């Protein structure tokens, strides 16, 4: 049933190693290899291609994070694992949209994967909050915070970018920004 791209399907261990090594190539091959399977699942169960994209990316992120944090143990085929997560996510989405008719057309075997998606859900909520807080923070704070904490730029570079006269001023500004960000973040329900 499933339509796989024969060339370039990475082996399961290749994927694990690739993710750990931040291999762009492996990620791409992984993504391309299993997307059709999920597209098939979604579009044949009341969804469209965008829904498929959303839940597939969510599943890849779940996998990615699990591998990165080191608590991923491959107990089944990676394909089955991805399918199961997507199936679970899609069922949930369908139920939320009241489009679930109590019946889902399956194309692969699958496992039950409840808790993993739950965990991911919590993290998503936090990330959402963070995204909102950063938007509310405004410039130049947003860029300073992003540059320093996300892009690992040195204070020296930031100082130059923003034209601060000395690094101390920049530091003070950064701490103010961080304070405000915390406030905005924790204010959100």
């Amino acid at each position, binding site marked *: 049933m499933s339509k796989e791209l024969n060339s370039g399907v990475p082996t399961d261990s290749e994927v694990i190693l690739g993710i750990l090594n931040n291999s762009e190539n492996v*990620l791409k091959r992984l993504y391309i290899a299993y*997307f059709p399977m999920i*597209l098939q699942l979604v579009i044949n169960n009341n969804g469209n291609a965008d829904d*498929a994209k959303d839940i597939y*990316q969510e599943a890849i992120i779940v996998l*990615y994070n699990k591998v990165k944090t080191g608590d991923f143990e491959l107990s089944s085929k990676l394909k089955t694992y991805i399918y199961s997560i997507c199936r679970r996510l899609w069922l949930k989405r369908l139920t939320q949209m009241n489009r679930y008719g109590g019946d889902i*057309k399956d194309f692969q075997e699958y496992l039950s994967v409840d808790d993993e998606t739950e965990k991911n859900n919590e993290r998503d909520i936090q990330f959402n909050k963070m995204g909102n807080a950063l938007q509310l923070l405004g410039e130049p704070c947003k860029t300073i915070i992003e540059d320093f904490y996300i892009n690992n730029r040195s204070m020296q570079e930031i100082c130059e970018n923003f034209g601060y006269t000395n690094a101390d001023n920049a530091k003070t500004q950064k701490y103010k920004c961080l304070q405000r960000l915390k406030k905005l973040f924790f204010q959100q329900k």
Partner: protein
Amino acid sequence: MSENNQLTETIERYLNGEMTKTERAQFEELRARDADVNAKVAEHKHFTNLIKQYGERLELEQRLNAIHDEIDVHTLEDELMIHPSWIVRMWRNHHSKISVAASIAIFAALCTLFFTGYLSNKQANYGRLVGEIDKLKTGQNKLQVTVNNLPLQHQAITNPGNFRGTGFAISSNGYIVTDNHVIHNADSVYVQAADGKSYRTKVIYTEPQNDIAILEITDPSFKPLGALPYIFKKAETDLGEGVFTIGYPKDNIVLGTGFLTSSTGYKGDTTQYQISALLDYGHSGGPLLDSKGNIIGIVNGKQTRVEGAAFAVKTSYLLKAIKDIPADSLNKPINTSGKNVMAGLTRPQQIKKLESYVFMVRVYNQ
């Protein structure tokens, strides 16, 4: 504020491993001593991690989107969609149009039917049909009653001179055929000729299954008739043939005419013809003749009340019956051969020739 910043900076330096050994030792001591500072360190660590992870997530999503953009989703979608059968697809895509078209079609059909008066006509046809069925039913019931009441009726007509049916000559020497049901249960049977003379007869043979009875005139006053003016047509007669009969439903001869409408009789009885002629009970036993004056059957009077549908026993059965008469019950030979002298004649002339060979059959019983 600045104190706070100082602490935050210290924490950051501590977390980033930018402290010297002694600084680090001092700070760790402070953490151990001051729970507040310790909590701040944990919180800062958690929060900055969250920012970092958020950044990573954003980046990962961007990477995934970039990969996704390279996939030709549209083509894949077409390939992977389970296509329902074309009729389902057609319905899904066009159901509104189909519904509208169907509604219009139904509406148009109804309008057409309405304006052409078809609807009301149909009602009438239907009614008529019901009426016909009812008539058939009553007709059949009547027949049933008639058949069941035959003996009773015989008792009712004890009055001498009540005519019961018709018979006709099958030979010139006094043999007459009539319906078995006419003479059934009779004590004595008389026949009366067209000229009013009455003769006593004897039933010499009956064939109840074909409703045929053969009488012989035993009356000494009977004088042989002339040669039969008709012949018995053995072959089946075709549908649509104009037929006629004469008989005695009352004291005078009555003509009945019609067409041969079916080669089988009541309920598909193959021994009979069905004819369209309004006949009366008294016609029973009369000769059925085609337009050329050949005898093609014996009117079977018991069903003549059915809506212009009468029945007649086919000649071939009559001939068979004649053949089957036991020889010892015959006093004279039966000579059925005649000469058809009526072929070219008009109906009135035919009847004139015929009437002296057709007899009223009178039946008497207790």
